């Protein structure tokens, strides 16, 4: 068999192996990776909280979020694949989601700067991507799954940004803060769970 043929066969074989941390959707690693976002509520909550923070800070930052968030996640995920073993950072991740939820609930009063938001968003996406990538490391189809998840993040972020395009009427501005407070509350309860039953 030729070199490219062997590589293609190997790639295909790797892709068909089950991923221990993915729910099989029947759509292959790409689909499993996309579904992972929906099946990992903590990741999804972080994404929603970051979008809330972004749209509360005007259009200039929220427009860039759809690009920054999935790219940082992907870079972090690639780093996670290189780590080679699963990182158990659930407690830290829950604490960070809680913190972002609190910020989203308080944001108009806090007036967080754009630089803080950019840096914070990139750092959090990198970290969560790193954890996601590390959980896929060593499995067949991990790269495709990671790419699928990044695509899902880009799509969900874009949809949310489209729906919550600033400026907001007063009721929606309050609603965004309320959702931030709910995320913070859920994160706090999650911290309690994790302290009782570490994952």
């Amino acid at each position: 068999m030729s070199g490219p043929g062997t590589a293609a066969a190997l790639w295909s074989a790797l892709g068909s192996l089950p991923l221990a941390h993915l729910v099989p959707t029947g759509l292959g690693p790409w689909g499993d990776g996309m579904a992972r976002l929906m099946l990992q509520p903590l990741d999804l909550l972080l994404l929603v909280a970051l979008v809330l923070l972004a749209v509360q800070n005007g259009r200039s930052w929220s427009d860039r979020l759809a690009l920054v968030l999935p790219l940082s996640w992907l870079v972090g995920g690639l780093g996670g694949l290189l780590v080679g073993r699963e990182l158990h950072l659930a407690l830290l991740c829950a604490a960070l989601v809680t913190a972002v939820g609190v910020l989203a609930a308080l944001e108009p009063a806090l007036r967080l700067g754009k630089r803080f938001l950019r840096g914070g968003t990139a750092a959090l996406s990198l970290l969560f991507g790193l954890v996601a990538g590390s959980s896929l490391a060593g499995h067949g189809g991990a790269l495709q799954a990671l790419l699928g998840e990044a695509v899902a993040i880009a799509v969900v972020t874009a949809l949310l940004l489209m729906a919550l395009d600033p400026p907001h009427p007063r009721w929606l501005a309050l609603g965004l803060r309320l959702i931030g407070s709910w995320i913070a509350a859920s994160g706090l309860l999650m911290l309690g769970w994790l302290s009782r039953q570490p994952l």
Partner: protein
Amino acid sequence: MGQCWRPSSWSVPRRHSPLPPALVVLVAAVLAPAAAWAHADLHPGGGLVAGFLHPITGLDHVVAMVAVGLWGAVLGPPALWLLPLAFPPVMALGGLLALLGVPLPGVEVGIALSGLVMGLMVLFELRPPLWLAALLVASFAVFHGHAHGAELPAGAHPLLYSLAFVIATGLLHLVGILLGEARRWPGGRALVRLAGAGVALVGLWFLERALA
């Protein structure tokens, strides 16, 4: 001509046979899972539905959450949105304490008092300073959260459970706010005060039970 074709068997009287065995088995198979539900846990640990149902199946919790919204409506902005905004995280803080094993004495009394006090606030349309109202509601939130935290079942989806639990609580606040908005219409004010009286009575009933 003029006669419709019909199968010859139509003219023959049908013999009423008993149900075919396959059909009996099929019917039994369809009904069997329904019988199994009789022994199913109505609040299976850790799930979106279980989390959502948890706060709305306890009357003491329901009336207190609705009272938060009602009182917010009586107080007007900014308390109208500040109380429901602050309640979930503080409640979750109480839940966190319970999950960490930190004891809180008089939880049941605190929960009953929350209904009684907030019901009376709505009934008599009392408007304390915002900081005092927020402090009162936050104190009650800790008791509610602690009770729920102690009851949270160990499950496979803790975050989904928590999220649904918090959302249900928030929706109860919203119900209270919408009820409170009835004050804008003629007769609505009396209706809201009546609702406050109902909440206070339920609180009093739970307080009597907690102290008994």
